[in-house]
C-alpha cells in the first residue's frame, strides 16, 4: 500500500478552489517533491493530508489511515513527522521545553542524534531565534520520534547554505533508512538534488508527475551567451533551443537538446562569457507546458486540463 494515496482530493473554500481532484500516490521509502509556485495549493494539500482541513470531495490515505477518520489518523500520526511552513512555536518557551512537550506526547528516541546535526540554541526562548534556528528546531521535532513518514512544507526556507547542504545530506540518509519523505518546495535545484519523483501543482491542479530526471530534461537549461562579434539571435536557433532572445549585450535561450550540439555551436563563436544554468521554476512550467499547449493550438487555460488528463492517463 502506498504511504500517501490521494483519490480525487478536492478542497474548495467557498467558490475558491484550493486543490482540484488530486490523484497520486507517494510510495514507501520515496523522497517526493511537491513543486509549485506560491499559491498553487501545496500547503492546502499538506493540511488536508494532516486532517487539519477536511476535503470537500474525494479523500486521501496517509500511512493507511483515511484523513476523514480522526481516530485512524491519530494512530497514523504516531509514525508521522511534520514541518509546517509557518513555524508556530510558543515564543516565550525555550527550544528545550518545546521538544520536551512534543516528546511527552509522541516520544523522542532520536533527539540527541538529531541535535548533533541541527543545532538550535535550546536553552534560549524561541522569540530570540533566527528563522534558521526555528527551522532546525522544527526539523529535530519532526524526526525525533523516528517516524516512517515526514511531511515538510518548504523545509529549507531560512536555512543558510551550509545548513541546507546538511539538510540534503540528512534527507538522503533518511531515505537509506527507509523513511518516506513528502515535501513541498518552489526551488527546483533542491528538488533535483534530493527527490526521486516530483509532482507539480499549478492553480490547484496536478499538472505533472515525473521522475526528477525526466522533468529536468524536459525543462532544459537556461543558456546566456556573450559573444565578441554581433551575432543575431537566430544563430542559436538549433534543435532543442527555444525562447531565444537578445537582452542587448547577451543572448539568452532555454536549451533542452543534446549537450554536444550546444557545445559545438558555441565553438563556432568567439565567446566573452557563457552561463549555463538551471531555469527558474516558472520557465520550466512555461516550456514544459506551454509547448504542448501550442501543439494543441489552445490558449493557456486549456493547457492545464490537457496535461492533467495526460498525467492521469499515464
Amino acid at each position, binding site marked *: 500500500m502506498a504511504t500517501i494515496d490521494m483519490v480525487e482530493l478536492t478542497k474548495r*473554500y467557498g467558490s475558491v478552489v484550493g486543490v482540484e481532484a488530486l490523484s497520486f500516490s507517494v510510495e514507501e521509502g520515496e523522497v517526493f517533491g511537491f513543486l509549485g509556485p506560491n499559491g498553487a495549493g501545496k*500547503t492546502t494539500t499538506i*493540511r488536508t493530508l*494532516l*486532517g*487539519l*482541513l*477536511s476535503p470537500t470531495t474525494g479523500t486521501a490515505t496517509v500511512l493507511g489511515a483515511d484523513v476523514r477518520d*480522526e*481516530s485512524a489518523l*491519530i*494512530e497514523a*500520526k*504516531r509514525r*508521522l*513527522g*511534520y514541518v*509546517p511552513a*509557518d*513555524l*508556530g*512555536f*510558543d515564543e*516565550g*518557551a525555550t527550544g528545550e521545553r518545546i521538544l520536551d*512537550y*512534543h516528546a*511527552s*506526547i*509522541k516520544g523522542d528516541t532520536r533527539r540527541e542524534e538529531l541535535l548533533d546535526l541541527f543545532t538550535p540554541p535550546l536553552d534560549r526562548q524561541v522569540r530570540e531565534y533566527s528563522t534558521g534556528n526555528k527551522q532546525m528546531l522544527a526539523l529535530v*521535532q519532526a524526526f525525533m520520534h523516528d517516524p516512517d513518514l515526514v511531511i515538510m512544507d518548504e523545509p529549507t526556507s531560512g536555512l543558510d547554505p551550509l545548513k541546507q547542504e546538511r539538510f540534503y545530506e540528512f534527507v538522503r540518509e533518511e531515505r537509506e533508512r527507509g523513511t518516506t519523505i513528502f515535501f513541498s518546495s518552489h526551488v527546483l535545484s533542491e528538488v533535483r538534488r534530493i527527490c526521486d519523483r516530483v509532482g507539480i501543482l499549478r492553480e490547484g491542479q496536478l499538472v505533472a508527475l515525473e521522475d526528477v530526471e525526466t522533468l529536468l530534461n524536459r525543462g532544459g537549461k537556461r543558456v546566456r551567451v556573450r559573444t565578441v562579434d554581433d551575432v543575431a539571435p537566430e544563430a542559436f536557433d538549433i534543435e532543442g533551443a527555444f525562447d531565444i532572445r537578445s537582452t542587448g549585450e547577451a543572448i539568452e535561450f532555454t536549451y533542452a537538446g543534446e549537450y554536444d550540439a550546444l557545445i559545438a555551436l558555441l565553438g563556432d563563436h568567439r565567446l566573452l562569457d557563457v552561463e549555463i544554468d538551471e531555469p527558474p521554476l516558472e520557465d520550466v512550467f512555461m516550456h514544459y507546458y506551454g509547448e504542448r499547449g501550442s501543439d494543441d493550438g489552445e490558449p493557456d487555460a486549456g493547457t492545464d486540463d490537457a496535461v492533467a488528463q495526460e498525467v492521469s492517463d499515464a
Partner: protein
Amino acid sequence: MLEIARYEAERRRRGTVALTVGLSILSLFFLAFFPSMADLDLDAYAEAFPPAFQEAFGIQALGTIEGFLAVEIYQFLWLLLLGLYLAYTAGGLIAGDVERDRMDLLLSLPVSRARVLGEKFVSLLPVLVTLNVVVPIVIYGGVAAIGESLDPVDLAMVHLLSIPYLLACAGIGLVLSTAVRRADVARRGAIAAVFALFLVDSVSASSADFDWVGAVSPTYHYNPTEILVEGTYDITGAGILLALTAVLLALALVRFRRNDVGA
C-alpha cells in the same frame, strides 16, 4: 495524559502567581479601610442606592464585615473581574493557537481535537484552584488582623461555589474561541458576553415580573452576599452552572471538530 494541560498551565504559571498576589494585596487593601468606615452609617448609605444597583453589587448589610466583603471583594473582584478574566483567557485558548499557527503543529501530533480542547480547558483549573486557596487564607488572616471575625465555613463556601461560576464564564469564552477566527475578537467577545449577562441579571433582578430572565446569566446562580451574610448555599445553582459548563464545552467541541484549521 494531560501533557497539553500541564504545558499550558505551566506557560501560565507566572500570570497565575501575579494574579494571586495582586488580588491578595487588593483584598487586604480593602480590608484595611473597613475599621475607619465603621463610624459611617453604611446601612443608610446602602439604602441610598437604587434597587438595581443594590442587586448588581449585592449591597446588603454593608456595615458588617460579611456584607462589606461580599460587596467590595466578592461581587466586584470575584464575580465581575475574575469572571471577565476567565472568559477572556478562555477566549484565546483555541483561536490564539490557530491565529499564531501553533494549532497545526499541535494537531500534527497524535492527539484528538477533543483532547486538545479538553486539556486546554483543564489547564485553567490551576489558576482557579490557586486563587481560591490562597486568597481566602489571606482574607481570613486580614479579617483577624483588623479585629473582626468571619465564619470560616462561609468563607470556604463562597470560594468553592465560585468555581462552577468561573468555569461557566470560561465555557462562554471557549465557545467563542472556536466560533471566531481571530483571537482578539474571541477574547473581547467573551468579555462583552459575560458583562452583558451580568447586566441582564442585575437589571431583571430589580423587577419582580422579570426576575426569571436573569436566570440565563451565570451570575444569577452564584450569590456571594447570600453565602456570607445569610449563610445559605445555592447548591442547585452550582449544579446548574456545572451543567451549563458541560453544555458549553460540548458546543465548543462540535464547533472545533468541524473547523478547518489554517484555511
